[in-house]
């Protein structure tokens, strides 16, 4: 299904040309997902709409279904019920694990994402070097995944996701393995790329401050079953510092709510 090209009637118009006024970038309606017939569904009636160019952060307890939802958005699975619409030929997804191909070098992994874009060899090499520089991995492009540290692998995966140049970017805890400083740098880069290229970003994280630092909207999911339970619009202006009081205040509020939500369900 990942290669579905517009299954609805009139097949006109490039998919990339979806403007802000054209409709939401992502629309999830009444989506349910269960993995075994016996247990409770993992997702149960999720409704979510993301406007083009919006930066959305998804929060929720561990195991509540965030990755499952991203998989559905990326078209890697079919929902058991409900519909998922994504206004992109192929949304780019950064998996929770780095998911690098072990037989390719760091550079090779990034270049692989450039191939479907029809780039020539030399151009690919150049672009992948630029992206690796962006994620602070200059000069590491010849290393194979098993020779990289955990955080370095995650950064290669980030570079690969950016290489796809898709208007919709789905990210599953992309900065979990990075030190505070590197992460700060990448936060800045991500915000820059997002605003200049008008990307639609769905960003999963466990770091509430990070969510507030980045997002225009923060969405909280409940667990067992996974549903959208709360939303916050973040009206702070960019750039925001992650340790700023404004971010801290909203983060505290969200954490409290998260705490309440989790204590209601989890145990």
């Amino acid at each position, binding site marked *: *299904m*990942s*290669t*579905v*090209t*517009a*299954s*609805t*009637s*009139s*097949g*006109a*118009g490039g*998919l990339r*040309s*979806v403007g802000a006024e*054209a*409709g*939401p970038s992502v*629309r999830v309606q009444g*989506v*349910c*997902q*269960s*993995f*075994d*017939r016996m247990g409770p569904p993992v997702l149960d009636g999720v409704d*979510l*709409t993301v*406007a083009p160019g919006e930066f959305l952060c998804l929060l929720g307890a561990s195991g509540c279904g965030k990755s499952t939802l991203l998989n*559905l958005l990326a*078209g890697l*699975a*079919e*929902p*058991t*019920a*409900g*519909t*998922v*619409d*994504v*206004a*992109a*030929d192929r949304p780019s997804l950064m998996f929770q694990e780095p998911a690098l191909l072990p037989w390719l070098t760091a550079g090779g992994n990034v270049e692989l994402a450039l191939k479907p874009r029809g780039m020539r060899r030399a151009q690919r090499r150049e672009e992948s070097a630029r992206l690796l520089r962006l994620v602070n991995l200059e000069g590491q492009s010849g290393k194979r995944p098993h020779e990289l540290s955990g955080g370095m692998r995650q950064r290669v995966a980030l570079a690969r996701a950016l290489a796809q140049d898709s208007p919709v970017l789905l990210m599953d805890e992309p900065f979990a393995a990075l030190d505070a400083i590197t992460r700060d740098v990448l936060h800045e880069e991500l915000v820059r790329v997002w605003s200049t290229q008008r990307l639609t970003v769905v960003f999963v994280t466990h770091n509430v401050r990070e969510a507030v630092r980045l997002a225009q*909207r923060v969405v909280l999911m409940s667990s067992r079953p996974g549903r959208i339970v*709360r*939303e*916050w*619009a973040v*009206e702070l202006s960019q750039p925001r510092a992650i340790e700023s009081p404004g971010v801290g205040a*909203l983060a505290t*509020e969200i954490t409290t709510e998260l705490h309440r939500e989790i204590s209601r369900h989890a145990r």
Partner: protein
Amino acid sequence: MPGESSTPVRLPAGHVETHTGQQQGRATPGRSVEAGLDALDTASVARPRRRPWHVLVHSVLPPVVFLAALVGVWQLVHAAGLKPSYALPSPTDVATTFWETVTDGRAAEAIWTSVSRGGVGFALSLVIGTLLGLAMWASTWLRAAIGPIVSGLQSLPSVAWVPAAIIWFQLTDAAIYTVVLLGAVPSIANGLLTGFKQVPPLFDRVGRVLGLGGLGRIRLVLLPAALPGYLGGLRQGWAFAWRSLMAAELITYSPSLGQGLGQLLNIGRELSQMSLVITSITLILLVGVAIELLVFAPLERGVLRRRGLTVDR
């Protein structure tokens, strides 16, 4: 500060990609090229239990259609007279011979003789091959000493062993088993080694961190990790065992040893009786297919499913 900013907006048709739970998009024309590949991709999503007609259409029909086509082509070639009928008998001739062989009990006897020999030989090879593989894994010295020879042995034709086996074990079942063992053991040992080599080193490190000793690591970590590759080795090992058995059966026939499929095939050849040759080939093939379907395919499916490797594709 919190506020619901998600006002539903109408989606313009044709500009979005839709995935629905009903999978109705699947049949859209123009996707059929990729459908074969894509239909296999969605593993680990709950799906309705396969109904009987589904099994029929997807598992039983294809081989039947294929076989029917094969027989059809054969009949056509026969009818066209490209080859004289003693060289290429008609399907009906073969069916008659086949039926005779089955009804007069020779088929059952030959199958039983060969399969029981093959089973015993393979079981022995399994034990010896696995032990040999483990020993070669554990000792670098042994690996250096006999590794290339074991690989070389794999490429020695079974007939090469026949004189040696006869000299040592005379015309007994032991000679036949020797030939079978020499055919299958290297393949199984090599399969195990190949499986071991592909085990991600992380697993071995996990075993060491958990405090497992060398043997514990092999038993609890390495062997299960290498299982898929090892199964592949077993499958090939069986093929070698079975083929070696057929070669060994061609040497001699003795009432006391019973008449196996290999001998049946040889009789067909000796008598230039193509329909008996084809009958024996069909019987040998049937046994091979049965072993595959009853033993290896379920084993493999179980192993792969247990570790979340895609089976449904």
